């Protein structure tokens, strides 16, 4: 076997494997079911969320260590952003990112159609501190925040509409 042919075959195998893996995980929200379950089952958590000092309360095992909430980290970079009453979809985008456009359309549509759901799009390049703080590795990455501004789930890659709807916290109205 000559090295050129070996490298060619290796490259194709690696690319095909990576591509199939990405196709499987793209747009999939992680950790959502667990947190939702906790919020549903525990009246303590519900009560705490309702309290005025809820900003410092961590729902379930929160993954963000430094800031009080994910949202407070977001507003530190974007003071004008507004938290949704029910949920906030925080989208990280960059210039060289075709799927970011698809994601923007989907999330904006969900925010428009569901009361209390807000969509905030953040340019990752302009807010690298925030990107590092929230450990965003790819664009698009979509974080779903609950009404207190805590991250309940996130998806890397463009999510489909149904995936976004399933990730929203507790459908209150239909």
């Amino acid at each position: 076997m000559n090295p050129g042919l070996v490298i060619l075959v290796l490259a194709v195998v690696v690319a095909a494997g990576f591509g199939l893996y990405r196709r499987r995980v793209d747009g999939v929200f992680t950790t959502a079911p667990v947190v939702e379950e906790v919020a549903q089952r525990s009246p303590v958590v519900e009560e705490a969320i309702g309290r005025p000092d809820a900003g410092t309360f961590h729902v379930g095992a929160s993954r963000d260590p430094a800031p009080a909430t994910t949202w407070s980290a977001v507003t530190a970079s974007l003071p004008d952003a507004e938290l949704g009453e029910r949920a906030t979809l925080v989208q990280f985008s960059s210039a060289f990112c075709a799927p970011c456009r698809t994601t923007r359309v989907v999330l904006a549509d969900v925010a428009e159609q569901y009361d209390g759901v807000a969509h905030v799009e953040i340019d990752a390049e302009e807010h690298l501190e925030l990107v590092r703080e929230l450990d965003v590795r790819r664009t698009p990455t979509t974080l779903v925040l609950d009404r207190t501004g805590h991250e309940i789930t996130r998806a890397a890659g463009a999510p489909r509409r149904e995936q976004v709807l399933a990730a929203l916290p507790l459908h209150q109205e239909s």
Partner: protein
Amino acid sequence: MSDATTGIDPRGPRFTAAVTFVVFAVALLLSDAEPAIAAVVTGVQAVLFAIGAGLGVQKTPTGLFFRAVVRPRLTPPDHLEDPAPPRFAQAVGLVFAVVATVGFATGAVLLGQVFAGLAIVAAFLNAVFAFCLGCEMYLLGLRLRPARA
């Protein structure tokens, strides 16, 4: 959605990536016996990448061929895309093609083969999965810059 009307057919860059894949595959297969010819092949690809990065993906020979010959035979695209990401990817590809060419031309054949192989990974992902590897490396690259905190 306002800029959707000014975009390009997303299948154009994928077609270009498919051609890129073939070119690098030919270069790799030639590289063991004839590294000088492999250098010419990757050198031509570098020129194509330079056109794509400098003038835009629509202006490369493959882009023009796609628009003139391939696209009329396809159904109209269901959406249009921003040409900036694939153009950026052409610039990334240019770097790999130049290194591969230098490797093949100077006798560092394995270096040339490794970079041609990396370019093949990117071209394959783009052509088959419409996945832009260079675009994604961009944010990771930015993140690697020293943090102020």
